[in-house]
């Protein structure tokens, strides 16, 4: 059997139509909580469960950050994006091919619900601007900047640091291209501002975006959030 034939046999066309929706018993809230406590320790899990984290932008960074945080049992996730799922997103963003055309907020909420049925997920399908960010983010403890446009990144970081001196912002800059993974790092710029990425790989200059490298940066951001909640403020 050659590779292509084998591939055909394992494609979605040969799967039962409802293979993703297969009805199996979902663990109870208490079972999920016990499993998380077993992995993270009860004390730390309590901190995760009582946190509210905003994810601003639900693309390659934001959708992957949200998956990590949902798996960790963050109590309240606030998902914000104005955009819809596009076919060009699928190579690095946490959406299914069947979700093209859906609002990213709603598609991601559905995907996170399948992973973490009992966390609170709040969505805002809007474009974040200087005018609405104060109102939007007032209820969140930690804000993840996960935009793709450099000017929007700067706008959000400046806005949060200016208007909410008590909150933390975890931002990203420089994860485009296919350079070494080891260039991606987390820096503490101020006690409230953490920055992940290599700092230089611009999407307009590098050859595209690669899932693994964007996910690395998203993982840095998600880990920075978990560490802050754990009281670990150094990098």
């Amino acid at each position: 059997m050659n590779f292509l034939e084998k591939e055909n046999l394992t494609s979605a066309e040969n799967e039962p139509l409802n293979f993703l929706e297969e009805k199996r018993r979902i663990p109870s809230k208490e079972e999920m909580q016990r499993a998380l406590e077993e992995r993270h320790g009860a004390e730390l899990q309590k901190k995760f469960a009582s946190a509210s984290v905003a994810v601003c932008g639900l693309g390659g960074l934001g959708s992957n950050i949200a998956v990590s945080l949902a798996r960790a049992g963050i109590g309240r996730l606030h998902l914000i994006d104005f955009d819809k799922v596009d076919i060009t997103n699928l190579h690095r963003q946490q959406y299914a091919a069947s979700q093209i055309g859906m609002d990213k907020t709603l598609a991601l909420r559905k995907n996170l619900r399948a992973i973490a049925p009992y966390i609170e997920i709040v969505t805002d399908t809007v474009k974040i601007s200087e005018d609405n960010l104060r109102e939007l983010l007032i209820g969140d403890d930690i804000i993840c900047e996960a935009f793709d446009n450099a000017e929007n990144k700067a706008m959000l970081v400046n806005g949060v640091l200016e208007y909410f001196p008590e909150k933390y912002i975890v931002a990203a800059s420089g994860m485009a291209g296919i350079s070494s993974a080891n260039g991606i790092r987390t820096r503490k710029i101020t006690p409230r501002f953490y920055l992940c990425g290599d700092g230089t790989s611009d999407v307009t200059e590098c050859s595209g975006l690669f899932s693994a490298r964007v996910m690395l940066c998203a993982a840095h951001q998600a880990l920075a959030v978990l560490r802050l909640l754990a009281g670990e403020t150094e990098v």
Partner: protein
Amino acid sequence: MVKINGADTDMAGKTVSEYLALTGCNPKLVAVERNEEIIPKAQYDTTVFEDGDTVEVVSFVGGG
């Protein structure tokens, strides 16, 4: 001396706006902190770097 992004510079007396123009940085793409505090964009024209300041200018690049 003013330490900017880890390097000693002679930018004391310059405003944030003057520094950004001198170094070719687009003010819309940066966040500037001085002594661990963010400088609001509205104050770039009036905030003057002083001798002994430690400054970090974060220039954002696209991708996400």
